[in-house]
């Protein structure tokens, strides 16, 4: 079959689309984007400097080495999550099944992704050099290192591309990269616990870098050419899946509705799992049993939570209130592991009606597993901090346990939030109009963490912890959970929302 040349088709689509647009709309969009980047860059240049190029190198060799798998691992996993090869939804619907050249159909997407991967890779490289290298490096060396990092970014894209077209090894590689990422995080934590000297020596000179970067560039270019040749072999279903991801991403961004994206990720996760029916645990209330089953089926997430309990250690040099905030947010994240069921019930009460439980019973049962998860996670995180002598003496693990109800209320409240209310009045600020809907939506859930203020104050003050504080936090948490239950549920109503 002869392929129809694609360029005239694309040009016709572009011309027809632009006929419907206002004159100068594209130029206006570009103008506003550039202006936005300039304004935000100008506002945040100090913060950006801290992230990418601090005044003095401040990372030990271990920390700098740990940043490599973290930053590039995240880049690779993000590339895998979004395709990396994607088409717009209209192109996937109309051009993918058409007899056009597959290579020229997919090439623009590859080109764009390669540019993005190279930029992100180079930025990661600059950040690592900025934190770890001496300021004696001259411009050409930094540029060479950044280019090498950009090339690594493209290489990762090519690996992700092969994984998109290939079989099961892609999933295994994802697991390996996740492990590397975890190892990198562990390295950072180890670095924060010990007293490692800032090692700003041993960086290669231009003489060694030029042939190295040249060789890498040659290999990447060769692989890129091979990838372009094999582009047409990418299976349709993978491209369709990536097109759906891209479409949902745009829906989320334009509709300012992040739940589109999170729901899609959740649906896809379960669609790829092979489950085997088991008996629900019989000794606990029925919905608690269901939540337990859901959590038991998310073992990988539990493992990540376990590792994440060590992350507050990274903040020991920061102000102590920041550790407190991190602990509270971590408790919310841990509790949210079991949040999918409440979210389903909040979105459509059909199953709750079928179950015939009152909203009070349902939410009470649904708070147990999140509460236990939040309690265990906070106890572990605070216990670790106290074990490493980053906190003054006291029963910190017990304070962590008392955060269980706080995490449970926050997670359940978050899961019940529903769609962003874009009809809320926008706020006029000197920086432009701020739409309040997404802001309010983002705060529903985390706002319940205010119940953890006693713990936050105790961590921020960094005084010896007394059992009285633990008791106060336990009381506030339990009373808050009871008040939440009494205020938002009823014994004579099945639906979670009262406004019917």
């Amino acid at each position, binding site marked *: 079959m002869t392929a129809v040349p694609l360029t005239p088709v694309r040009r016709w689509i572009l011309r027809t689309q632009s006929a419907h647009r206002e004159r100068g709309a594209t130029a206006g969009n570009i103008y506003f984007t550039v202006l936005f980047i300039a304004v935000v860059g100008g506002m945040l240049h100090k913060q950006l400097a801290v992230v990418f190029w601090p005044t003095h190198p401040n990372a030990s060799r271990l920390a700098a080495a740990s940043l490599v798998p973290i930053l590039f691992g995240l880049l690779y996993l993000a590339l895998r999550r979004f395709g990396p090869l994607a088409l717009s939804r209209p192109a996937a619907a109309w051009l993918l099944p058409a007899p056009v050249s597959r290579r020229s159909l997919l090439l623009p997407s590859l080109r764009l992704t390669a540019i993005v991967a190279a930029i992100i890779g180079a930025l990661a490289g600059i950040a690592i050099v900025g934190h770890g290298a001496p300021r004696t490096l001259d411009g050409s060396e930094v540029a060479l290192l950044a280019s090498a990092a950009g090339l690594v970014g493209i290489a990762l894209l090519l690996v992700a591309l092969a994984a998109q077209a290939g079989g099961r090894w892609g999933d295994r590689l994802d697991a390996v990269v996740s492990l590397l990422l975890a190892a990198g995080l562990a390295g950072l934590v180890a670095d924060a616990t010990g007293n490692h000297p800032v090692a700003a020596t041993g960086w290669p000179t231009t003489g060694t870098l030029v042939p190295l970067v040249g060789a890498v560039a040659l290999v990447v270019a060769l692989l890129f050419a091979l990838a372009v040749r094999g582009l047409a072999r990418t299976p349709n279903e993978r491209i369709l899946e990536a097109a759906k991801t891209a479409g949902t991403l745009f829906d989320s961004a334009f509709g300012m509705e992040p739940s589109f994206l999170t729901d899609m990720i*959740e*649906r896809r996760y*379960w*669609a790829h*799992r*092979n*489950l*085997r*029916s*088991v*008996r*629900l645990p*019989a000794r606990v209330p*029925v*919905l608690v*049993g*269901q939540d337990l*089953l*859901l959590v038991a*089926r*998310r073992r990988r997430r539990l493992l990540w939570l376990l590792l994440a309990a060590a992350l507050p250690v990274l903040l020991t040099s920061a102000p102590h209130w920041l550790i407190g905030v991190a602990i509270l947010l971590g408790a919310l994240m841990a509790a949210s592991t079991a949040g*999918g*069921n409440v979210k*389903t019930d909040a*979105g*459509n009460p*059909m*199953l*709750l*009606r*079928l*179950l*015939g*439980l*009152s909203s009070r*019973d349902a939410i009470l049962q649904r708070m147990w597993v999140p509460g236990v998860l939040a309690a265990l996670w906070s106890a572990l995180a605070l216990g670790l901090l106290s074990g490493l002598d980053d906190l003054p003496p006291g029963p910190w693990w017990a304070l962590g346990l008392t955060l269980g109800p706080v995490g449970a209320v926050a997670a359940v409240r978050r899961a019940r939030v529903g769609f962003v209310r874009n009809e809320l009045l926008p706020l006029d600020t000197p920086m432009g109009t701020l739409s309040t809907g997404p802001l309010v939506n983002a705060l529903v859930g985390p706002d319940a963490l205010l119940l953890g203020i006693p713990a936050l104050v105790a961590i921020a003050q960094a005084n010896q912890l007394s059992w009285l504080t633990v008791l106060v936090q336990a009381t506030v948490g339990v009373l808050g959970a009871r008040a939440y239950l009494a205020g938002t549920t009823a*014994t*004579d*109503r*099945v*639906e979670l929302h009262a406004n*019917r």
Partner: protein
Amino acid sequence: MDHPAVEVKGLHVSYGSTPVLVDVSLTVPAGTGVCVTGENGIGKSTLLRCVSSLQQPDDGQILVFGGTPGATPEFWRAVVTTVEPPTWYPGLTVREHAELVCRAHGQDPGDAGIEEALERFGLAGHADAIPPSLSSGQKQRLTLAVALLRPSSLLILDEPEQRLDPDGRAEVAALLVEYVADGGSLLMASHDDAFAEASGAVLTTMESLSAVAP
């Protein structure tokens, strides 16, 4: 029980300026089945939604077992409806959905006949699948299987024959006959007269329920 399962008097519902139900009255005696037929858009689903308390009528009286239908747990322990589009819990298989509903109603999952029900609805081979991965017909079968598994006094079904193949229709009709024979009451809307007759329900047209001739 003395009260009829469903008693509707003088029901008025309109969408904007378009009246859909005008002075509609209907009685479903307890322990019997009634099937409402009629063309698309005549208000069958609206009537069922009102009886299920999922929609507020503009005017009229609705009683279910002598009481006002509402959002209470007691109402939903007596009534099962498939009027709404179904939704499913994440990470829960077909069989576990059935077990969850049975356990919530205090049934022992071993005695509730889950395996038999899945077998009869042709879902035994899909017990380990998650419901979103099923075909639309299989989802409909699962909804009906779960609705019939749990104890209830009144079934409100909106076109239960939809998306079912002929064997599935015959199977569902037989189960509905059994349900009514066991003392349950049934109110459904259908486009398939043969299915409605096979399910033992009394057929009535939407036109005959309205006091005002359209």
